[in-house]
């Protein structure tokens, strides 16, 4: 599965510009789908199975988009000013590189009056920063206002741990693609949805859920983990299994669904952790509020350094997330 992960995380797809990623996923899974379509917001919707006795219509969502930047202005010397697409932290930008959709590479730096300032600078925002694409004037600058770029870092396989930009949320697209391949049979009508524009407001999940009108929603996403020096955030740790969300700022998981996922994990002997975070949200929050409401949950892959260009996951957690998703959707949904 590492090869699939590498292919997906290295592709470029900031929110609203997910085409490359969508094509990769489509090629990967089209032979496993009963039906496949792309909706008007660019979500890739894959149906598998039909509803048998006791079956439900289940929508799963993993978002294809990643955070990135968009050009707002190019000055007369060819320096590129930009704004964020999704939650970009200025700290992780300085000295980093971006790659525009047309392949142009640029270096991000912060304005400096003298070089000593570089070692002392403490507070700065994206407005203080620029991208240097090697141009000398506005005229010879290869990018224009509105051009979009993703952060540029290669995938690294550290053995048990994998590092890359865009683990949030390509790792989920990999988990769902793999789950679709591993699935043997199901009594449910399943929709694997590779969603768009999650990072800018859960948009693709909201509209695709409206179209699909599911009984139950399951998002797969990353959850930020601070099992690191000085970290005292929550109890979730890398390598201890997929995290079952209980609450974030977009969702309180229906306790009946939480019980169902816990029972399933225990029956299958899949390690799991409980996740409570006081910030952030996922596609599950969008699905939850669609139409007259959809009980929803999120299976999270514990991830260090979320929204930096070096997001780290544990490979065992990823494999266990696949197992858990497959186990959940292969059976009738038992809620009490």
């Amino acid at each position: 599965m590492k090869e699939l992960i590498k292919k997906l995380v290295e592709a470029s797809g900031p929110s609203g510009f997910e085409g490359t990623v969508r094509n990769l996923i489509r090629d990967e899974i089209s032979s496993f789908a009963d039906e496949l379509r792309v909706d008007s917001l660019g979500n890739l919707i894959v149906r598998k199975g039909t509803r048998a006795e006791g079956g439900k219509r289940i929508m799963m969502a993993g978002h294809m988009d990643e955070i990135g930047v968009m050009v707002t202005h190019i000055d007369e010397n060819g320096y590129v000013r930009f704004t964020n697409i999704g939650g970009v932290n200025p700290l992780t930008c300085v000295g980093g590189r971006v790659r525009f959709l047309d392949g142009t590479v640029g270096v991000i730096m912060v304005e400096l009056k003298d070089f000593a300032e570089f070692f002392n600078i403490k507070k700065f925002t994206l407005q203080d920063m620029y991208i240097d694409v090697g141009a000398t004037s506005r005229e010879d600058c290869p990018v224009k206002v509105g051009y979009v770029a993703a952060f540029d870092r290669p995938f690294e396989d550290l053995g048990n741990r994998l590092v890359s930009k865009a683990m949030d949320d390509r790792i989920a697209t990999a988990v769902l693609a793999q789950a679709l391949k591993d699935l043997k049979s199901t009594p449910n009508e399943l929709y694997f949805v590779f969603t768009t524009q999650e990072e800018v407001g859960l948009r693709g999940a909201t509209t695709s859920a409206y179209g699909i009108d599911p009984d139950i929603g399951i998002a797969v996403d990353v959850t930020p983990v601070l099992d690191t020096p000085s970290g005292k955030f929550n109890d979730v740790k890398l390598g201890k299994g997929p995290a079952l969300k209980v609450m974030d700022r977009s969702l309180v998981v229906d306790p009946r669904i939480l019980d169902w996922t816990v029972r399933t994990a225990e029956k299958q002997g899949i390690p799991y952790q409980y996740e409570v975070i006081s910030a952030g949200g996922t596609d599950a929050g969008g699905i939850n509020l669609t139409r007259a409401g959809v009980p929803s949950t999120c299976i999270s892959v514990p991830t260090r350094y979320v929204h930096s260009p070096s997001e780290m996951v544990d490979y065992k957690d990823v494999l266990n997330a696949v197992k858990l998703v497959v186990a959940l959707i292969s059976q009738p949904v038992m809620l009490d």
Partner: protein
Amino acid sequence: MAQLKEFLKQIISLPGLSGYEAPVREIVSRKWEPLVDEMRVSRLGSLEALKRGSGTGLKHTVLLAGHMDAIGLMVTQVTGRFLHVTSVGGVDPRVLPGQPVEVHGLKELRGVVVQPPDNLLADQKPGAPVGLDELFVDVGLEAEELAQLVHPGNIVSFGQMPLELGEELLAGHTMDDRTSVAAITYCLEILQKRIHSWDVWAVATVQEEVGIKGAFTSGFGLNPDIAIAIDVTHAKGPGTSEKSIADLGKGVVISQGPNIHPGLYKHIMKLVEELEFAHQMEVDPAHSGTDAIALQVTRGGRASMVLSIPLRYMHTPVEVVSMKDIRRTGRLLAEFITGLDEKSLDELSQEMSY
């Protein structure tokens, strides 16, 4: 009337944090069952009760929403003999130390919220309040047993018992917004003896405190013609402005603002003036912060309005309300509903003369 106070005391004594409303839903549905014609639970858990109107043919519907969820805490970490918690909804950490709580783990556990002595906290000024990250819940168990009974994600509800202050005032947690559930209940009781032509959906909504969710989904599911959110509003108390805020015990608060349909506003003002009904005014310049904001925009949108019950010390475990205001709200709702006829909806649209 004494019965209404007892009912309110009963429902504020129950847990039922946002997303975990089953215990309070159970009691409210038992109370409403004889008062309505049909009941169901929405997919998100809101209790939706229909009292049919006497009208014939295609009947109009009015939805009354009062949220039954409570703010509270949730375990984030089990550290030795103590629990770290985060908030479910907006909890003011200044009022937490010393509060009795109930931890809903594998067993129900009584506990207290505790804080370290301030001389042991780095950079702490003597007497200054500490944040949620410095507070703990102590249920008095040893680490091993605690780890067996409690895990991250278990909910923690307030354990403060209701307290009567004099004849009319009542203090307790979750007055926001179970007072409104009580007011809707009172309205349904009055309607038993009245004839009304519109259908009435009484809805005890879920998850208002975490993003006004139950109102979004019930508004979509029931698609009423008009919607009224009943909620609480800040009453004058220590530190509040003398000018802009309602007085406890002085009547229903009627809101104005973009969340409020101008026709509905005129209609309700005419009604309170005709009936010489004790009322107060409030301005919500943008977002009413109530179920009305969801009810206004879900599906194709609809005329919506907010009626509020004055309350002191919002989002603390000692919220204070007046039974008088609750009864008045129930009565005003009943009068409003009784007055609705086939022409009302058209009249509301025509009254949008601005």
